[in-house]
Protein backbone atom coordinates (compact mmCIF):
# COMPACT_ATOMS: atom_id res chain seq x y z
CA UNK A 1 0.00 0.00 0.00
CA UNK A 2 1.32 3.38 -1.00
CA UNK A 3 2.42 5.75 1.77
CA UNK A 4 1.16 8.83 -0.05
CA UNK A 5 -2.28 7.24 -0.44
CA UNK A 6 -2.24 6.27 3.25
CA UNK A 7 -1.69 9.93 4.00
CA UNK A 8 -4.36 11.15 1.57
CA UNK A 9 -7.07 8.70 2.54
CA UNK A 10 -6.60 8.62 6.30
CA UNK A 11 -9.31 6.92 8.31
CA UNK A 12 -10.68 10.28 9.47
CA UNK A 13 -11.19 11.32 5.81
CA UNK A 14 -12.90 8.05 4.92
CA UNK A 15 -15.05 8.38 8.04
CA UNK A 16 -16.18 11.94 7.22
CA UNK A 17 -16.84 10.84 3.61
CA UNK A 18 -19.03 8.00 4.81
CA UNK A 19 -20.71 9.92 7.63
CA UNK A 20 -20.45 13.63 6.84
CA UNK A 21 -21.18 15.91 9.80
CA UNK A 22 -23.68 18.79 9.57
CA UNK A 23 -24.95 17.30 6.31
CA UNK A 24 -28.37 18.97 6.10
CA UNK A 25 -30.31 21.82 4.61
CA UNK A 26 -30.61 24.85 6.92
CA UNK A 27 -33.97 26.55 6.56
CA UNK A 28 -33.21 29.63 8.65
CA UNK A 29 -29.71 30.35 7.28
CA UNK A 30 -28.39 33.92 7.06
CA UNK A 31 -26.50 33.12 3.88
CA UNK A 32 -25.71 30.27 1.57
CA UNK A 33 -23.51 29.69 -1.46
CA UNK A 34 -23.02 26.95 -4.00
CA UNK A 35 -19.66 25.55 -4.98
CA UNK A 36 -19.15 23.53 -8.14
CA UNK A 37 -16.41 21.85 -9.99
CA UNK A 38 -17.73 21.55 -13.57
CA UNK A 39 -15.02 19.17 -14.69
CA UNK A 40 -15.77 16.62 -11.96
CA UNK A 41 -19.46 17.36 -11.62
CA UNK A 42 -18.92 17.99 -7.89
CA UNK A 43 -21.52 20.26 -6.42
CA UNK A 44 -22.24 21.37 -2.85
CA UNK A 45 -24.09 24.08 -0.97
CA UNK A 46 -22.91 25.69 2.28
CA UNK A 47 -25.38 27.32 4.68
CA UNK A 48 -24.31 29.74 7.43
CA UNK A 49 -26.20 31.21 10.36
CA UNK A 50 -24.68 34.33 11.81
CA UNK A 51 -25.39 35.80 15.24
CA UNK A 52 -23.73 39.18 14.95
CA UNK A 53 -20.18 38.38 13.96
CA UNK A 54 -20.30 34.77 15.08
CA UNK A 55 -21.03 31.74 12.88
CA UNK A 56 -23.51 30.06 15.20
CA UNK A 57 -24.39 27.25 12.79
CA UNK A 58 -23.07 25.84 9.53
CA UNK A 59 -24.20 22.96 7.33
CA UNK A 60 -23.73 21.57 3.84
CA UNK A 61 -25.18 19.19 1.29
CA UNK A 62 -24.07 17.98 -2.10
CA UNK A 63 -22.22 15.29 -3.95
CA UNK A 64 -18.55 14.88 -4.65
CA UNK A 65 -15.45 12.83 -4.09
CA UNK A 66 -14.23 11.73 -0.67
CA UNK A 67 -11.78 14.64 -0.46
CA UNK A 68 -14.36 17.35 -1.17
CA UNK A 69 -16.96 15.79 1.10
CA UNK A 70 -14.60 15.18 4.02
CA UNK A 71 -13.16 18.65 3.66
CA UNK A 72 -16.64 20.21 3.79
CA UNK A 73 -17.55 18.08 6.80
CA UNK A 74 -14.36 18.92 8.68
CA UNK A 75 -14.79 22.58 7.77
CA UNK A 76 -18.23 22.78 9.36
CA UNK A 77 -16.79 21.47 12.61
CA UNK A 78 -13.81 23.81 12.44
CA UNK A 79 -15.67 27.09 11.88
CA UNK A 80 -18.77 26.61 14.00
CA UNK A 81 -18.71 29.16 16.83
CA UNK A 82 -15.91 31.16 15.20
CA UNK A 83 -16.09 34.81 14.14
CA UNK A 84 -16.00 35.77 10.49
CA UNK A 85 -12.37 36.81 10.62
CA UNK A 86 -11.40 33.64 12.52
CA UNK A 87 -13.12 31.51 9.87
CA UNK A 88 -11.36 33.36 7.06
CA UNK A 89 -8.03 32.97 8.88
CA UNK A 90 -8.59 29.20 9.16
CA UNK A 91 -9.31 29.08 5.40
CA UNK A 92 -6.09 30.98 4.64
CA UNK A 93 -4.06 28.60 6.80
CA UNK A 94 -5.82 25.54 5.38
CA UNK A 95 -5.15 26.71 1.83
CA UNK A 96 -1.44 27.19 2.62
CA UNK A 97 -1.27 23.62 3.91
CA UNK A 98 -3.16 21.80 1.13
CA UNK A 99 -1.26 23.64 -1.61
CA UNK A 100 2.01 22.78 0.11
CA UNK A 101 2.97 26.46 0.51
CA UNK A 102 3.02 26.30 4.33
CA UNK A 103 3.34 22.68 5.48
CA UNK A 104 4.57 23.90 8.90
CA UNK A 105 1.04 25.13 9.71
CA UNK A 106 -0.46 21.63 9.54
CA UNK A 107 0.39 20.79 13.16
CA UNK A 108 -1.75 23.64 14.53
CA UNK A 109 -4.87 22.85 12.50
CA UNK A 110 -6.48 20.20 14.66
CA UNK A 111 -8.59 17.70 12.70
CA UNK A 112 -8.04 19.63 9.48
CA UNK A 113 -4.46 18.34 9.55
CA UNK A 114 -5.91 15.11 8.12
CA UNK A 115 -6.20 16.89 4.76
CA UNK A 116 -2.52 17.87 4.57
CA UNK A 117 -1.85 14.78 2.40
CA UNK A 118 -3.63 16.60 -0.44
CA UNK A 119 -0.49 18.70 -0.97
CA UNK A 120 1.12 15.61 -2.57
CA UNK A 121 -1.71 15.50 -5.16
CA UNK A 122 -1.85 18.93 -6.87
CA UNK A 123 -4.77 17.79 -9.06
CA UNK A 124 -6.90 17.30 -5.95
CA UNK A 125 -6.37 20.71 -4.27
CA UNK A 126 -9.50 21.98 -6.01
CA UNK A 127 -11.52 19.18 -4.39
CA UNK A 128 -10.24 20.02 -0.91
CA UNK A 129 -10.87 23.74 -1.25
CA UNK A 130 -14.33 23.66 -2.88
CA UNK A 131 -16.37 23.95 0.34
CA UNK A 132 -14.08 26.65 1.67
CA UNK A 133 -14.49 28.86 -1.38
CA UNK A 134 -18.25 28.47 -1.05
CA UNK A 135 -18.07 29.38 2.67
CA UNK A 136 -16.01 32.46 1.76
CA UNK A 137 -18.59 33.47 -0.87
CA UNK A 138 -21.46 33.00 1.60
CA UNK A 139 -19.72 35.18 4.21
CA UNK A 140 -19.18 37.89 1.60
CA UNK A 141 -22.84 37.72 0.66
CA UNK A 142 -24.08 38.21 4.20
CA UNK A 143 -21.98 41.38 4.62
CA UNK A 144 -24.34 43.06 2.19
CA UNK A 145 -27.12 42.48 4.73
CA UNK A 146 -29.11 40.13 2.50
CA UNK A 147 -29.80 36.47 2.92
CA UNK A 148 -29.92 35.85 -0.82
CA UNK A 149 -27.59 33.27 -2.28
CA UNK A 150 -24.11 34.31 -3.32
CA UNK A 151 -23.10 33.65 -6.91
CA UNK A 152 -21.85 30.06 -7.29
CA UNK A 153 -18.11 29.62 -6.97
CA UNK A 154 -16.10 27.28 -9.10
CA UNK A 155 -12.70 25.81 -8.41
CA UNK A 156 -11.97 25.06 -12.07
Amino acid sequence: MSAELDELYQSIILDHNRRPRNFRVMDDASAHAEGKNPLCGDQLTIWLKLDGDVISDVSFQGSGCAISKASASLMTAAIKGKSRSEAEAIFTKFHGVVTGAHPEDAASMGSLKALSGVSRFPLRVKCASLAWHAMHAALGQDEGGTAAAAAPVSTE
Partner: protein
Amino acid sequence: MSAPRADFPLLAAQPSLVYLDSAATAQKPRVVIDAIRDYYETANANPHRGAYKLSGAATDAYHGARREIARFLGAADADTLIFTRGTTEAMNLLATAWGHQHVHRGDRVVVTRMEHHANFVPWQQLARDVGAEFRICELTDDGRIDMDQLRLLVTANTKVVAFGHVSNALGTINDVREIVKIAHAIGAVAFCDGAQGAPHLRVEFDALGVDAYAFSGHKMLGPMGIGGVIARRALLESTHPYQFGGDMIEFVFDGDSTWNTLPHKFEAGTPNVEGAVGLAAAVRYLDGIDMDNVRAHEVELTRYALAQLATIDGMQLFGPAAAEARSGVVSFNLSDIHPHDLSTMLDVDGVCVRAGHHCAQPLMRAIHQTATVRASFYVYNTAADVDALVASLRRAHARFHAHAG
Protein backbone atom coordinates in the same frame (compact mmCIF):
# COMPACT_ATOMS: atom_id res chain seq x y z
CA MET B 1 -1.95 -9.35 -31.62
CA SER B 2 -0.96 -5.95 -30.23
CA ALA B 3 1.37 -3.34 -31.72
CA PRO B 4 4.87 -3.42 -30.20
CA ARG B 5 5.20 -1.03 -27.28
CA ALA B 6 8.66 -0.24 -28.64
CA ASP B 7 7.00 1.55 -31.60
CA PHE B 8 5.68 4.20 -29.18
CA PRO B 9 8.50 6.30 -27.65
CA LEU B 10 6.48 7.50 -24.65
CA LEU B 11 5.39 3.97 -23.73
CA ALA B 12 8.88 2.60 -24.36
CA ALA B 13 10.36 5.23 -22.04
CA GLN B 14 7.87 4.40 -19.26
CA PRO B 15 7.68 0.60 -19.22
CA SER B 16 5.49 0.43 -16.10
CA LEU B 17 2.90 2.92 -17.35
CA VAL B 18 -0.53 1.39 -17.97
CA TYR B 19 -2.14 3.80 -20.42
CA LEU B 20 -5.89 3.19 -20.58
CA ASP B 21 -7.13 6.55 -21.84
CA SER B 22 -6.84 6.24 -25.62
CA ALA B 23 -10.46 7.33 -26.07
CA ALA B 24 -9.23 10.72 -24.83
CA THR B 25 -6.07 10.69 -26.92
CA ALA B 26 -3.83 7.98 -28.34
CA GLN B 27 -0.07 7.68 -27.86
CA LYS B 28 1.99 8.35 -30.99
CA PRO B 29 4.15 5.87 -32.85
CA ARG B 30 7.68 6.94 -33.75
CA VAL B 31 6.76 6.98 -37.47
CA VAL B 32 4.29 9.82 -36.81
CA ILE B 33 6.79 11.89 -34.85
CA ASP B 34 9.44 11.24 -37.51
CA ALA B 35 7.09 12.22 -40.35
CA ILE B 36 6.44 15.60 -38.75
CA ARG B 37 10.17 16.23 -38.20
CA ASP B 38 10.94 15.09 -41.72
CA TYR B 39 8.37 17.49 -43.19
CA TYR B 40 9.91 20.46 -41.37
CA GLU B 41 13.45 19.38 -42.25
CA THR B 42 12.81 18.78 -45.95
CA ALA B 43 9.61 20.35 -47.29
CA ASN B 44 8.43 23.24 -45.11
CA ALA B 45 6.96 26.25 -46.93
CA ASN B 46 3.49 27.76 -47.16
CA PRO B 47 1.49 25.54 -49.52
CA HIS B 48 -0.42 27.03 -52.48
CA ARG B 49 1.40 30.35 -52.07
CA GLY B 50 4.72 30.32 -53.85
CA ALA B 51 5.70 29.56 -57.41
CA TYR B 52 8.97 28.12 -56.10
CA LYS B 53 9.74 24.42 -55.84
CA LEU B 54 9.76 24.25 -52.03
CA SER B 55 6.22 25.61 -51.79
CA GLY B 56 5.28 22.96 -54.35
CA ALA B 57 6.79 20.30 -52.10
CA ALA B 58 4.71 21.53 -49.15
CA THR B 59 1.58 21.56 -51.34
CA ASP B 60 2.30 18.01 -52.47
CA ALA B 61 2.88 16.84 -48.89
CA TYR B 62 -0.42 18.39 -47.78
CA HIS B 63 -2.59 17.02 -50.57
CA GLY B 64 -0.78 13.71 -50.63
CA ALA B 65 -1.74 13.35 -46.97
CA ARG B 66 -5.35 14.21 -47.83
CA ARG B 67 -5.45 11.46 -50.48
CA GLU B 68 -4.00 8.86 -48.09
CA ILE B 69 -6.42 9.72 -45.27
CA ALA B 70 -9.41 9.79 -47.66
CA ARG B 71 -8.45 6.37 -49.00
CA PHE B 72 -8.03 5.04 -45.44
CA LEU B 73 -11.57 6.22 -44.62
CA GLY B 74 -13.04 4.76 -47.81
CA ALA B 75 -13.71 8.00 -49.71
CA ALA B 76 -12.86 7.95 -53.42
CA ASP B 77 -13.24 11.72 -53.85
CA ALA B 78 -10.34 13.06 -51.73
CA ASP B 79 -11.28 16.69 -52.31
CA THR B 80 -14.42 16.17 -50.24
CA LEU B 81 -12.20 15.64 -47.18
CA ILE B 82 -12.01 19.01 -45.40
CA PHE B 83 -9.27 19.30 -42.81
CA THR B 84 -10.28 20.86 -39.48
CA ARG B 85 -8.73 20.98 -36.00
CA GLY B 86 -10.72 17.87 -35.16
CA THR B 87 -14.24 16.54 -34.73
CA THR B 88 -15.37 19.48 -32.59
CA GLU B 89 -14.53 21.98 -35.30
CA ALA B 90 -16.00 19.69 -37.95
CA MET B 91 -19.37 19.43 -36.18
CA ASN B 92 -19.38 23.18 -35.60
CA LEU B 93 -18.67 23.67 -39.30
CA LEU B 94 -21.68 21.53 -40.21
CA ALA B 95 -24.01 23.10 -37.64
CA THR B 96 -22.93 26.65 -38.42
CA ALA B 97 -22.46 26.60 -42.20
CA TRP B 98 -24.86 23.90 -43.37
CA GLY B 99 -27.23 24.30 -40.40
CA HIS B 100 -27.94 28.00 -40.63
CA GLN B 101 -28.50 27.68 -44.33
CA HIS B 102 -30.85 24.69 -44.20
CA VAL B 103 -32.58 24.57 -40.80
CA HIS B 104 -35.40 27.03 -40.18
CA ARG B 105 -38.14 27.81 -37.68
CA GLY B 106 -40.47 24.84 -37.28
CA ASP B 107 -37.92 22.33 -38.56
CA ARG B 108 -36.64 19.54 -36.36
CA VAL B 109 -33.09 18.56 -35.40
CA VAL B 110 -32.56 15.10 -33.89
CA VAL B 111 -29.57 13.93 -31.82
CA THR B 112 -29.19 11.02 -29.39
CA ARG B 113 -28.81 10.79 -25.62
CA MET B 114 -25.26 9.40 -25.95
CA GLU B 115 -23.73 12.31 -27.89
CA HIS B 116 -20.49 13.95 -26.85
CA HIS B 117 -21.03 17.66 -26.12
CA ALA B 118 -19.28 18.41 -29.44
CA ASN B 119 -22.15 16.75 -31.32
CA PHE B 120 -24.88 17.91 -28.96
CA VAL B 121 -24.36 21.58 -28.12
CA PRO B 122 -23.80 22.83 -31.73
CA TRP B 123 -27.20 21.37 -32.73
CA GLN B 124 -28.91 22.50 -29.54
CA GLN B 125 -27.67 26.06 -30.11
CA LEU B 126 -28.53 25.98 -33.83
CA ALA B 127 -32.09 24.97 -32.93
CA ARG B 128 -32.34 27.76 -30.36
CA ASP B 129 -30.94 30.31 -32.82
CA VAL B 130 -33.37 29.54 -35.64
CA GLY B 131 -36.38 28.42 -33.61
CA ALA B 132 -36.22 24.77 -34.64
CA GLU B 133 -37.26 21.81 -32.47
CA PHE B 134 -34.36 20.00 -30.79
CA ARG B 135 -35.18 16.37 -30.01
CA ILE B 136 -33.09 13.79 -28.18
CA CYS B 137 -33.50 10.10 -28.95
CA GLU B 138 -33.29 8.08 -25.72
CA LEU B 139 -31.34 4.87 -25.15
CA THR B 140 -32.25 1.34 -24.20
CA ASP B 141 -31.28 0.06 -20.75
CA ASP B 142 -28.09 -1.47 -22.10
CA GLY B 143 -26.94 1.79 -23.67
CA ARG B 144 -27.98 1.50 -27.30
CA ILE B 145 -29.94 4.00 -29.38
CA ASP B 146 -33.65 3.16 -29.12
CA MET B 147 -34.23 2.67 -32.85
CA ASP B 148 -38.00 2.42 -32.45
CA GLN B 149 -38.06 5.83 -30.82
CA LEU B 150 -35.73 7.20 -33.48
CA ARG B 151 -38.15 6.11 -36.21
CA LEU B 152 -40.92 8.05 -34.44
CA LEU B 153 -38.76 11.13 -33.78
CA VAL B 154 -37.58 11.50 -37.36
CA THR B 155 -40.67 13.18 -38.72
CA ALA B 156 -41.27 14.89 -42.06
CA ASN B 157 -40.02 18.25 -40.73
CA THR B 158 -36.70 16.75 -39.59
CA LYS B 159 -33.74 18.28 -41.44
CA VAL B 160 -30.81 16.53 -39.77
CA VAL B 161 -30.03 13.50 -37.63
CA ALA B 162 -26.67 13.95 -35.87
CA PHE B 163 -25.29 10.85 -34.13
CA GLY B 164 -22.05 9.27 -33.02
CA HIS B 165 -20.57 6.22 -34.72
CA VAL B 166 -19.34 4.99 -31.33
CA SER B 167 -20.22 6.37 -27.87
CA ASN B 168 -17.15 7.83 -26.16
CA ALA B 169 -18.64 7.17 -22.73
CA LEU B 170 -20.22 3.71 -23.19
CA GLY B 171 -18.36 2.28 -26.18
CA THR B 172 -21.63 1.37 -27.95
CA ILE B 173 -21.22 0.91 -31.70
CA ASN B 174 -24.23 2.35 -33.49
CA ASP B 175 -25.89 0.95 -36.60
CA VAL B 176 -24.86 3.73 -38.99
CA ARG B 177 -26.55 2.28 -42.06
CA GLU B 178 -29.91 1.84 -40.30
CA ILE B 179 -29.81 5.40 -38.91
CA VAL B 180 -28.97 6.72 -42.39
CA LYS B 181 -31.90 4.76 -43.79
CA ILE B 182 -34.28 6.33 -41.27
CA ALA B 183 -33.01 9.86 -41.98
CA HIS B 184 -32.98 9.49 -45.75
CA ALA B 185 -36.47 7.98 -45.82
CA ILE B 186 -37.92 11.42 -45.04
CA GLY B 187 -35.22 13.42 -46.83
CA ALA B 188 -33.18 14.47 -43.79
CA VAL B 189 -29.38 14.38 -43.84
CA ALA B 190 -27.42 12.09 -41.52
CA PHE B 191 -24.21 13.47 -39.99
CA CYS B 192 -21.94 11.08 -38.12
CA ASP B 193 -19.47 11.99 -35.36
CA GLY B 194 -16.72 9.45 -36.01
CA ALA B 195 -14.26 10.60 -33.34
CA GLN B 196 -14.49 7.20 -31.61
CA GLY B 197 -15.22 5.24 -34.79
CA ALA B 198 -12.41 6.04 -37.20
CA PRO B 199 -9.60 5.01 -34.81
CA HIS B 200 -11.08 1.56 -34.16
CA LEU B 201 -13.32 0.41 -37.01
CA ARG B 202 -12.86 0.20 -40.75
CA VAL B 203 -14.78 3.20 -42.10
CA GLU B 204 -16.12 2.81 -45.61
CA PHE B 205 -17.42 6.32 -46.15
CA ASP B 206 -18.71 5.77 -49.68
CA ALA B 207 -20.62 2.64 -48.64
CA LEU B 208 -21.96 3.96 -45.30
CA GLY B 209 -24.30 6.43 -46.95
CA VAL B 210 -23.84 9.16 -44.34
CA ASP B 211 -23.88 12.71 -45.66
CA ALA B 212 -20.88 13.70 -43.52
CA TYR B 213 -18.41 11.85 -41.29
CA ALA B 214 -16.15 13.74 -38.86
CA PHE B 215 -12.97 12.47 -37.19
CA SER B 216 -10.07 13.53 -34.96
CA GLY B 217 -6.48 12.66 -35.85
CA HIS B 218 -5.12 12.56 -32.30
CA LYS B 219 -7.39 9.68 -31.32
CA MET B 220 -6.07 7.55 -34.21
CA LEU B 221 -2.33 7.79 -33.45
CA GLY B 222 -1.93 11.13 -35.25
CA PRO B 223 -0.97 14.53 -33.83
CA MET B 224 -3.32 16.90 -31.99
CA GLY B 225 -4.89 19.78 -33.91
CA ILE B 226 -5.75 17.87 -37.09
CA GLY B 227 -8.89 16.04 -38.09
CA GLY B 228 -11.60 16.65 -40.58
CA VAL B 229 -14.90 15.89 -42.15
CA ILE B 230 -15.71 13.98 -45.32
CA ALA B 231 -19.01 14.97 -46.87
CA ARG B 232 -20.99 14.40 -50.03
CA ARG B 233 -19.67 16.68 -52.78
CA ALA B 234 -23.10 18.14 -53.58
CA LEU B 235 -23.66 19.03 -49.93
CA LEU B 236 -20.32 20.82 -49.67
CA GLU B 237 -20.73 22.60 -52.99
CA SER B 238 -24.15 23.96 -52.05
CA THR B 239 -23.07 25.08 -48.57
CA HIS B 240 -21.87 28.62 -47.92
CA PRO B 241 -18.29 28.90 -46.58
CA TYR B 242 -17.70 28.70 -42.84
CA GLN B 243 -14.68 30.97 -42.49
CA PHE B 244 -13.27 33.56 -44.84
CA GLY B 245 -9.68 34.43 -45.63
CA GLY B 246 -6.71 33.29 -47.64
CA ASP B 247 -6.82 30.16 -49.82
CA MET B 248 -10.61 29.83 -49.76
CA ILE B 249 -11.36 32.66 -52.21
CA GLU B 250 -11.33 32.71 -55.98
CA PHE B 251 -11.70 36.45 -56.66
CA VAL B 252 -12.22 39.26 -54.17
CA PHE B 253 -14.03 42.27 -55.65
CA ASP B 254 -14.81 45.45 -53.77
CA GLY B 255 -18.41 44.49 -53.19
CA ASP B 256 -18.38 40.68 -53.13
CA SER B 257 -16.16 37.61 -53.50
CA THR B 258 -16.26 34.23 -55.16
CA TRP B 259 -15.06 30.95 -53.68
CA ASN B 260 -12.31 28.52 -54.51
CA THR B 261 -13.13 24.89 -55.37
CA LEU B 262 -13.23 22.03 -52.86
CA PRO B 263 -11.52 21.41 -50.52
CA HIS B 264 -10.09 24.95 -50.36
CA LYS B 265 -13.50 26.62 -49.99
CA PHE B 266 -13.69 25.31 -46.40
CA GLU B 267 -10.02 25.69 -45.48
CA ALA B 268 -9.37 29.39 -44.89
CA GLY B 269 -5.86 30.44 -43.88
CA THR B 270 -2.53 28.63 -43.78
CA PRO B 271 -3.32 24.95 -43.23
CA ASN B 272 -1.94 22.54 -40.64
CA VAL B 273 0.47 20.72 -42.98
CA GLU B 274 2.49 19.06 -40.21
CA GLY B 275 -0.76 17.70 -38.77
CA ALA B 276 -1.92 16.31 -42.11
CA VAL B 277 1.50 14.73 -42.77
CA GLY B 278 1.59 13.26 -39.25
CA LEU B 279 -1.94 11.86 -39.60
CA ALA B 280 -1.07 10.31 -42.97
CA ALA B 281 1.82 8.52 -41.27
CA ALA B 282 -0.59 7.35 -38.58
CA VAL B 283 -3.07 5.85 -41.07
CA ARG B 284 -0.18 4.12 -42.89
CA TYR B 285 0.81 2.61 -39.55
CA LEU B 286 -2.78 1.48 -38.90
CA ASP B 287 -2.98 0.06 -42.44
CA GLY B 288 0.19 -1.87 -41.69
CA ILE B 289 -1.53 -3.55 -38.75
CA ASP B 290 -4.79 -3.77 -40.77
CA MET B 291 -7.98 -2.36 -39.28
CA ASP B 292 -9.54 -5.82 -39.08
CA ASN B 293 -6.72 -6.85 -36.76
CA VAL B 294 -7.09 -3.62 -34.75
CA ARG B 295 -10.74 -4.47 -34.24
CA ALA B 296 -10.13 -8.14 -33.41
CA HIS B 297 -7.51 -7.17 -30.82
CA GLU B 298 -9.86 -4.69 -29.15
CA VAL B 299 -12.78 -7.12 -29.04
CA GLU B 300 -10.54 -9.67 -27.37
CA LEU B 301 -9.24 -7.16 -24.78
CA THR B 302 -12.71 -5.76 -24.11
CA ARG B 303 -14.19 -9.22 -23.61
CA TYR B 304 -11.38 -10.06 -21.18
CA ALA B 305 -11.77 -6.72 -19.35
CA LEU B 306 -15.57 -7.07 -18.99
CA ALA B 307 -15.16 -10.57 -17.57
CA GLN B 308 -12.37 -9.62 -15.16
CA LEU B 309 -14.05 -6.42 -13.94
CA ALA B 310 -17.27 -8.31 -13.24
CA THR B 311 -15.41 -10.43 -10.66
CA ILE B 312 -14.83 -7.37 -8.42
CA ASP B 313 -17.40 -6.86 -5.64
CA GLY B 314 -19.49 -3.72 -6.07
CA MET B 315 -18.65 -3.35 -9.77
CA GLN B 316 -21.29 -1.59 -11.87
CA LEU B 317 -20.65 -1.75 -15.63
CA PHE B 318 -22.38 0.52 -18.13
CA GLY B 319 -23.15 -0.11 -21.80
CA PRO B 320 -23.83 -3.24 -23.87
CA ALA B 321 -22.90 -6.57 -22.27
CA ALA B 322 -21.33 -8.09 -25.40
CA ALA B 323 -17.80 -7.06 -26.36
CA GLU B 324 -18.80 -7.30 -30.04
CA ALA B 325 -21.31 -4.48 -29.52
CA ARG B 326 -18.64 -2.09 -28.23
CA SER B 327 -15.39 -0.52 -29.20
CA GLY B 328 -12.55 -0.83 -26.68
CA VAL B 329 -14.26 1.33 -24.05
CA VAL B 330 -15.34 0.11 -20.61
CA SER B 331 -17.20 2.54 -18.35
CA PHE B 332 -17.92 1.63 -14.73
CA ASN B 333 -18.31 2.63 -11.12
CA LEU B 334 -17.03 0.71 -8.14
CA SER B 335 -19.21 0.55 -5.04
CA ASP B 336 -19.74 4.04 -3.58
CA ILE B 337 -16.20 5.22 -4.39
CA HIS B 338 -16.21 8.46 -6.34
CA PRO B 339 -14.50 8.12 -9.77
CA HIS B 340 -12.00 10.84 -8.91
CA ASP B 341 -10.88 9.03 -5.79
CA LEU B 342 -10.52 5.84 -7.84
CA SER B 343 -8.56 7.66 -10.53
CA THR B 344 -6.13 9.08 -7.96
CA MET B 345 -5.59 5.65 -6.40
CA LEU B 346 -5.10 4.01 -9.82
CA ASP B 347 -2.68 6.75 -10.84
CA VAL B 348 -0.41 5.92 -7.91
CA ASP B 349 -0.17 2.40 -9.43
CA GLY B 350 0.68 3.90 -12.82
CA VAL B 351 -2.77 3.18 -14.28
CA CYS B 352 -4.17 6.09 -16.35
CA VAL B 353 -7.97 6.12 -16.68
CA ARG B 354 -10.46 8.88 -17.30
CA ALA B 355 -12.81 9.85 -14.47
CA GLY B 356 -15.61 12.30 -15.03
CA HIS B 357 -18.64 12.96 -17.19
CA HIS B 358 -16.74 12.32 -20.45
CA CYS B 359 -18.18 15.47 -22.04
CA ALA B 360 -21.52 13.66 -22.08
CA GLN B 361 -23.58 15.27 -19.29
CA PRO B 362 -26.96 14.48 -20.93
CA LEU B 363 -25.97 10.79 -20.91
CA MET B 364 -24.73 10.91 -17.29
CA ARG B 365 -28.12 12.26 -16.19
CA ALA B 366 -29.88 9.42 -18.01
CA ILE B 367 -27.79 6.72 -16.33
CA HIS B 368 -28.09 8.54 -12.96
CA GLN B 369 -24.35 9.00 -12.45
CA THR B 370 -22.48 12.26 -11.86
CA ALA B 371 -19.39 10.61 -13.27
CA THR B 372 -17.92 7.24 -14.22
CA VAL B 373 -14.49 5.71 -14.58
CA ARG B 374 -13.58 4.86 -18.17
CA ALA B 375 -10.81 2.53 -19.31
CA SER B 376 -10.18 2.51 -23.06
CA PHE B 377 -7.93 0.30 -25.14
CA TYR B 378 -5.93 0.63 -28.33
CA VAL B 379 -3.40 -1.23 -30.41
CA TYR B 380 -0.60 -1.08 -27.81
CA ASN B 381 -2.63 -2.41 -24.87
CA THR B 382 -2.40 -6.01 -23.68
CA ALA B 383 -4.15 -8.37 -21.29
CA ALA B 384 -1.44 -7.48 -18.76
CA ASP B 385 -2.76 -3.89 -18.78
CA VAL B 386 -6.24 -5.22 -17.91
CA ASP B 387 -4.72 -7.31 -15.11
CA ALA B 388 -2.96 -4.22 -13.72
CA LEU B 389 -6.24 -2.27 -13.81
CA VAL B 390 -8.14 -5.01 -12.00
CA ALA B 391 -5.43 -5.46 -9.35
CA SER B 392 -5.31 -1.72 -8.72
CA LEU B 393 -9.11 -1.53 -8.43
CA ARG B 394 -9.06 -4.34 -5.86
CA ARG B 395 -6.46 -2.45 -3.80
CA ALA B 396 -8.54 0.75 -4.01
CA HIS B 397 -11.66 -1.11 -2.92
CA ALA B 398 -9.83 -2.60 0.05
CA ARG B 399 -8.48 0.80 1.07
CA PHE B 400 -11.89 2.46 1.02
CA HIS B 401 -13.71 -0.32 2.76
CA ALA B 402 -11.12 -1.32 5.37
CA HIS B 403 -12.61 1.19 7.81
CA ALA B 404 -16.22 0.71 6.93
CA GLY B 405 -18.51 0.02 9.80
